């Protein structure tokens, strides 16, 4: 019973080792992907901070890693310590009277949706940048690397500029 059977075509130890190598490679790839994502986020934040916006706005959004979301309740709700609950009580009490003159609800809903849209776009840009970065890092002979990528790089020659 000591002897090991070797089938004509298949060796389980080799298969298991091969599968383990695949998992290892996948883990390395995943680690690279998360590293690249972090780099992209940092780069986006640097670009955001360079914009000519008020400092407090830039800080506010940067603190939330560009994932800022507008909360419609913030319009009516006071978080001020001490007076906050009293203010909230009167705001609730007089809200119907305010709405006799103008209705801010549609505006609040639109801003709320817009903030989701902005968040989605930010995420999309981030994903595209990560994807591009990962493709660029693949070796030139990797079959997963798009050919257009290689051509785009090779076209970046001064002599090609201005010709069409």
């Amino acid at each position, binding site marked *: *019973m*000591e*002897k*090991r*059977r*070797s*089938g*004509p*075509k*298949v*060796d*389980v*130890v080799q*298969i*298991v080792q091969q*599968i*383990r190598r*695949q*998992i290892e490679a996948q883990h390395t790839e995943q680690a690279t992907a998360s590293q690249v994502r972090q780099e992209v986020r940092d780069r986006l934040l640097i670009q955001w901070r360079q914009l000519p916006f008020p400092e407090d706005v830039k800080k506010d959004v940067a603190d939330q890693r560009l994932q800022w979301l507008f909360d419609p309740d913030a319009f009516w709700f006071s978080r001020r310590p001490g007076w906050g609950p009293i203010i909230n009580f009167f705001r609730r009490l007089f809200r119907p009277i305010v709405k006799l003159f103008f209705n801010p609800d549609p505006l609040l809903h639109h801003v709320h949706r817009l903030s989701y849209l902005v968040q989605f776009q930010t995420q999309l840009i981030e994903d595209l940048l990560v994807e591009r970065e990962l493709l660029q890092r693949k070796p030139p002979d990797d079959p997963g690397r798009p050919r257009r990528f290689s051509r785009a790089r090779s076209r970046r020659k001064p002599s090609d500029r201005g010709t069409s």
Partner: protein
Amino acid sequence: MRLAIVVQRYGADIVSGAELHARNLAELLHGPHHVEVFTTCAQDYVTWRNHYPPGSTFVGPVRVHRFPVRRPRDPRTYGRWEQYLLTHPHSEADEYRWLELEGPYAPRLIEAIRRRAADFDFWLFFSFRYYTTFHGARAVPDRAILVPTAEEDPIIGFSIFRRLFHGVRGIAYNSIEEQRLIQGMTRNYQVPGVVVGIHVQPPPEPPCPERFRQQWNVSEPYVLFVGRVDVNKGAPQLVEMFAHYAASRPNPPLLVLLGPIVDSVPPHPRIRLLGPVDEQTKWDALAGCEFLINPSPLESLSMVLLEAWKARKAVLVNGQCAVLRGQCIRSNGGLFYTSPAEFHRMMDWLLEHPDLRQQLGENGRAYVDEHYRPDPILRKYEELFERARSVPEIRVA
């Protein structure tokens, strides 16, 4: 030769583990030898509560003597005591108390063994961890052959078992890994030992996968688990891993679980929990499955693995169990995983490569035909009896 087999439970309706092993062996040895079985009246392995009437009867062709369990096991007290012993310094007296709590506590069975010691050439004791084996083997040390069915269980390090593994005429190991484990722990190299295992009983009728599919309304491809649905057998862990696998694949197979349900598992649309089934249904299910999964972390042999190979099916096993891993490597008949990520990949690999899966099944079948047919098993037992006779007289410490 006159042989007696001592086992904690015995019956045609007990179809798991060491007890099935004991029954298969009793029926195999019954041809060339005279065999009688000594056991308890218990059917339930958790409490050992008396179920069968005491006295002598026949199960198949073999005469069986049943003795009552004097005190059923209280699983909570037993569990607490075992946990205490495994985590604290303790004396041998504490271990003897643990052994009584473990049971099956049947002193009349031990008395009968002592009384009839000379009626048999050899007494074969099944499963090292039970009261009946320990005290039975010590009652007839010069005629005792131990079939330990040991797993990588920490209680094997209890000092009383050192006495047991040194104090028998011979040991029939189930696998090389089991032999290494016991010899490594107890240094009983002088005790004659043979790696035997047990033959695989053929199905009652030729297996028919269609019958299983119709009976249980299983129309899709499925992978199979056979055994107790129990934490100790790794079933809940398998269900959890499979649920993650199914959620991450577009077209996963079904997971069918056959066997007594001890621990509940959460319902899942891709998992079918069918409960205990008869032998024929098991073989029908084996014949129709894509492959068999054995997630058990502790095994001394795994008869279901041999049955799957007999049915020419590949297997996927828990690689943390040295015995299962060793069997797969020796037979080239299955893959072994050690993490959920490996489980997922190996499921994919086996499902995507039907030709190689078939090859694994064929390798497994050839391995079973070579080592687990009645003839080699009988020959190895004869060899063990021969070697056991040549051992000098044993003194019980």
